[in-house]
């Protein structure tokens, strides 16, 4: 069956159910299309397992981060609810002014993350506060009628959920038939609360323990900014008149700033609300936590290389601020890594990986041998060992096991020392190595950090730290080392503690030093003459340069040198590690192509420089040129760039035919046969309509046989 028709645009293909067996599963596609499908099944399983773990971890992170916010919200609900419940009188006076308790939830511009937050929010509310949680989106509610319909619909569903006993009753009242009005809503609420109230407590013990008596109806406006003003206003005005009949609480999801409430709602309406502001965690902090928990840990064997991480972070910072998208990118890199790297089968927990090494096939061994990092390793060995490594599979496997273990240990040390270094760098002015740990991580991943300029200035700045700062930092470092799993840091901890002790002992001596400096200061104050002042200052400087360092300074140097040595020994770039290709995903290019594509540039390149795609020598040309043998559309495009706002089709056609006839070798003066001419005409028509489809031109009514250009400028 073909999919082109002049009367239809949609074609459904439904294979007969017999044929429609479980067509190939995802795993099959994973292994298909790859000739070197080594261990692809195992790889896919590993990939899925890893991703599952990562995903659950991210969910956990999200939950933890939102906990504070949700707790605040719940206590707010509790407060407004308790007023309704117990202090009837107080509620009554409030009711007179008909204020609806409202929580304004400022979530930030990363709209894509909001859905997850709202989903967990309504879950939390349903679990702890009230079964009646309604979430509304602007696109579902173009009018007040739709809004009420949606509201009632969701509430009725909730009701069925809770009162499973009265199910028939509720179902009987078909949602569609209910006249959706606030009056019916309040009637419904009355009946529902009465039922639960009259029920014997034993029957509903679970639900009543979870929910409060006469639970409030919570209405969440997910994207407050996109609601039409009228709908919001109407809803608020109407519901404020019914507020005494049932407790209603509104939650506004706000992406921009709380000011938007007052811009959307006139004073007469916003005065009906009793607004309390809640601020969610900023997306940057969220990202920092995610990176901390997913990347800077040995929990997951999979790692991102510097470039990949840069791409992901840049997409986050420059495009969307969306943690969700960051995780999506992470997922893509996991999949890509396992799909493209046959040795990724070893990218799992250390024990498992060691087992898997034993069962590697010969091909896989060859794969290991061809890894650049492994080659480097081989070259550094003695010749007998080199031969053994390159010829004996069993020996190779043994070595691989130890190498994998080394890699694991490297990571353990790396993250601990990285955190330690981060504690140091964050206390420095101007943050030469970055404020966030992710920046530091990127700097260390890519190249030897101690060779960079920034590191040099960091060390210099560290040598100027004050004593109390240094002590505080050292204490933090000790904590980090103690909490780390690596055992080889016991020496380091001892050393650091020794430093701390020495700092304490310094107290008395430093006082003396201070005396000296104070006296010199006094001397300085005496001189008022400019010449003398300069002279003394120079002298002071000289003396400082030559002066013997104080004990504190000596100690400080010692500490900094010690940290420096830690950095040099443990923060070696990952690329230098043998077998790093197994766990590091480093084709940043694919990631960027798939996540942050530039369709206009692709189109432009194809039109301007077809040689990029069609490797034909006749098309080869310099920048800004185009061969006249290029595809029609390229020629037509180039010609159209010469025109202004409007293009005369006749001129265009003539120009095109001049070019094309010249290519074909026919002499333009003795105009060729009609036949050729018509073909050129047809080709021109095709090219022009293609340009129209691409959006470069559109028909214009301003003048006969003219088209309007839609792009301004050209090349």
């Amino acid at each position: 069956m073909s999919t082109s028709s002049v009367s239809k645009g949609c074609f459904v293909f439904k294979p007969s159910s017999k044929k429609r067996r479980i067509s190939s599963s995802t795993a099959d596609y994973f292994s298909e299309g790859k000739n070197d499908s080594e261990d692809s099944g195992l790889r896919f399983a590993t990939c899925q397992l890893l991703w599952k773990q990562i995903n659950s971890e991210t969910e956990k992170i999200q939950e933890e981060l939102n906990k504070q916010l949700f707790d605040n919200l719940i206590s707010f609900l509790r407060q407004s609810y308790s007023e309704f419940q117990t202090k009837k009188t107080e509620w009554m006076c409030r009711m007179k002014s008909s204020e609806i308790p409202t929580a304004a939830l400022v979530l930030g511009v990363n709209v894509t993350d909001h859905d997850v937050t709202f989903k967990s929010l309504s879950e939390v509310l349903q679990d702890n506060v009230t079964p009646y949680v309604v979430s509304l989106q602007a696109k579902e509610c173009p009018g007040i009628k739709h809004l009420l319909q949606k509201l009632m619909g969701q509430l009725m569903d909730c009701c069925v959920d809770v009162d499973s006993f009265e199910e028939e009753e509720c179902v009987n009242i078909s949602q569609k038939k209910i006249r959706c009005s606030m009056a019916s809503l309040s009637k419904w609420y009355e009946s529902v609360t009465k039922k639960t109230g009259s029920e014997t407590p034993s029957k509903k013990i679970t639900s009543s323990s979870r929910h409060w008596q006469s639970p409030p109806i919570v209405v969440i406006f997910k994207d407050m900014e996109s609601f039409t003003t009228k709908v919001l206003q109407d809803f608020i005005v109407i519901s404020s008149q019914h507020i005494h009949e049932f407790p209603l609480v509104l939650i506004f999801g706000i992406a921009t700033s709380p000011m938007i409430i007052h811009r959307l709602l006139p004073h007469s309406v916003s005065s009906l609300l009793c607004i309390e502001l809640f601020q969610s965690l900023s997306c940057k902090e969220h990202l920092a936590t995610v990176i901390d928990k997913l990347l800077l840990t040995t929990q997951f064997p999979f790692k991102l290389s510097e470039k990949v991480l840069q791409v992901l972070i840049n997409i986050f910072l420059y495009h969307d601020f969306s943690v969700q998208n960051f995780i999506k990118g992470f997922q893509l890199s996991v999949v890509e890594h396992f799909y493209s790297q046959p040795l990724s089968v070893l990218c799992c927990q250390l024990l498992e990986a060691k087992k898997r090494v034993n069962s590697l096939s010969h091909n896989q061994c060859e794969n290991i041998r061809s890894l650049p990092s492994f080659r480097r390793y081989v070259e550094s060995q003695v010749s007998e060992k080199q031969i053994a490594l390159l010829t004996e599979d069993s020996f190779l496997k043994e070595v691989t096991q130890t190498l994998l273990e080394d890699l694991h240990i490297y990571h353990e040390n790396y993250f601990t020392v990285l955190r330690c270094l981060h504690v140091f760098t964050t206390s420095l002015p101007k943050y030469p190595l970055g404020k966030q740990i992710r920046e530091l991580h990127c700097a260390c991943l890519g190249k030897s950090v101690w060779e960079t300029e920034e590191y040099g200035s960091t060390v210099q700045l560290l040598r100027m730290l004050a004593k109390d700062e240094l002590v505080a930092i050292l204490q933090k470092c000790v904590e980090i080392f103690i909490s780390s799993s690596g055992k080889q840091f016991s020496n380091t901890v001892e050393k650091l503690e020794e430093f701390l002790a020495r700092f304490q002992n310094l107290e008395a001596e430093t006082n003396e030093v201070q005396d000296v400096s104070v006296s010199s200061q006094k001397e300085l104050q005496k001189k008022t003459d400019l010449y003398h002042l300069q002279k003394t200052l120079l002298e002071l400087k000289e003396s400082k340069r030559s002066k013997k360092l104080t004990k504190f300074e000596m100690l400080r140097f010692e500490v900094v040198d010690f940290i420096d040595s830690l950095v040099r020994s443990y923060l070696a770039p990952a690329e230098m590690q043998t077998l790093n290709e197994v766990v590091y995903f480093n084709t940043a290019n694919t990631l960027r192509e798939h996540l942050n594509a530039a369709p206009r540039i692709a189109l432009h390149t194809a039109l301007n420089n077809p040689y990029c795609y069609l490797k034909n020598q006749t098309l080869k040309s310099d920048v800004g040129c185009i061969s006249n043998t290029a595809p029609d559309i390229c020629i037509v495009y180039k010609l159209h760039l010469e025109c202004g706002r409007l293009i005369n089709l006749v001129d265009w056609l003539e120009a095109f035919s001049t070019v094309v006839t010249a290519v074909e070798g026919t002499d333009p003066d003795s105009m060729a046969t009609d036949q050729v001419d018509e073909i050129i005409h047809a080709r021109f028509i095709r090219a022009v309509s293609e340009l129209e489809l691409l959006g470069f031109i559109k028909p214009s009514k301003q003048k006969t046989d003219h088209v309007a250009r839609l792009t301004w400028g050209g090349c």
Partner: protein
Amino acid sequence: MSQLELKRNQVLEARFVADEDVLKHISDNGGVKVRKDRAQLALNVKRFVKKLENIYDDDDEAQEIMEEQNYVAVLGACAEDSLRNGPSAGGGKIYSFQTPKRSGKMAELASELAQTPGRNVTFDSSEYPEKPACTPQSSKKYSASNKPQLKSKKNEFVSTTPYRLRKRLTAPSLRSDSESDYSASCSEEEEEDKDHKETSDVILGQKTPSKTRAVPPSKKTPAKKLKEEMTSNLVEEYFEAHSSSKVLTSNRTLQKLQKRKLDQQTLLVLLNKAPSAFTAELKELNQQHESLFSKWMLQLHLGFSIVLYGLGSKRDLLEKFRTSLLRDSIHLVVNGFFPSITVRSILNSITEEVLDHVGTFRSPMDQLDLIMKRFKEDSSLELYLLIHNLDSKMLRGDKSQQILAQLASLPNIHLIASIDHINAPLMWDQAKQSLYNWLWYETTTFSPYLEETSYENSLLVQQSGSLALSSLTHVLHSLTPNARGIFRLLAQYHLENKDNPSYPGLSFQDFYQRCREAFLVNSDLTLRAQLTEFRDHKLIRTKRGTDGVEYLLIPVDNGTLTDFLEKEDEDM
């Protein structure tokens, strides 16, 4: 010298504004050098203008620029190793503001292209007026070798600007001979341009002040002022070019060209005859894309949607994907380019044919709700959605995209789509993008958009035109001579008023009067009966004017109408 040293330092610091400093340096050093290096200066100015387009406004915030650099460096870092994304990763160069072109340019370019069959021609138009002096040899050779040929060809471009053309082609040799002549020729050009057309005035006008401004040594950072002026000029230039309703192109029309319009069939036949070039390369390109099929399937299954972009029809590629991998699963193919496709029809085919649902829906939202419910309930249900041209006119609306995005967000609906329009990505905001969960794939195929453009009422194909003419003659031949006369009368009046843009049509009363005078009708009613007949055949259209009077119009374009009248005259 030390001053110079200082400047150098500045240059080193600022990096981006090197040209500015060069300018400043030259202007500071007084007039002698300036005059000497005038041509060079002009070049500098030019280069500077070009550079400006890429620079952000505030260069004070070096930090920001540095970050920008970093960003570009990282995101564009691997541009070199992948030809896919082309050498020019920075978008500024591609669709920057630039000087508007003159009408003669196209013909010039064409002749140049044509005259050098085996060779490539530089026609980076922005540099054309000041053909860089660095390649005098080649340009000299070029103009010399082509001169005789050119003379013979000149007659062909009579309607355009032959003077300019000749001048332009001889100019390079002039320029390479002596740079001082250059400015003179430039001003000559300028004058000529002035009486020629307005648009070019704008550019040249912009050129001259910049030159004059650069020459006097002003103490206050002239470069900066210049820059500001430039940027504002660019903006003004845009609006100037787009504000004047005056059209500065030649008046030739296709009708005069004696080229009969082609209908779809003949077009296809002719195109089949056209030689197809680069078959081997195209095949290779396609094979590259086809090797990705199983990867696409994997990623679709993992919850991503796939969008294909790049020049060339991606329909065949998707069809191949469909036939090779989706044979055994339920899938829905949507031709987005189909002119009357709607989201409703897509949803209908899902509910009716995939889900076998009977019944109607009040709104697409309800329908979507049902689909989402059904797909969530039954996890074994899987649907592949192939959409050709997701960015077509009918589907690009916000509501349609929202619905499609929601469909795509279902875990067991797998969407793979193609886009072609240059501005297609603007359809999606962050929320929609995250619903779609796109993975972008560049699939440049260079294959012609045959199917996609076949529906389009293209400018040149105009099926309606030929159809209208034949239907006109057919309908009118079946009518009485009087009725034909009535239509002729209206047509003639219509053509008389074709240059009047505010022509509302012929009012019924006037028409009746005219018909009576020509003895074509005897009563109001007979005329109305005739008009009803015409209206049924869509030969005329009635419109109520602001004053409530009924106006009659012929909804056929003037060319066809003229043809028709000529034919009628022949017949008579």
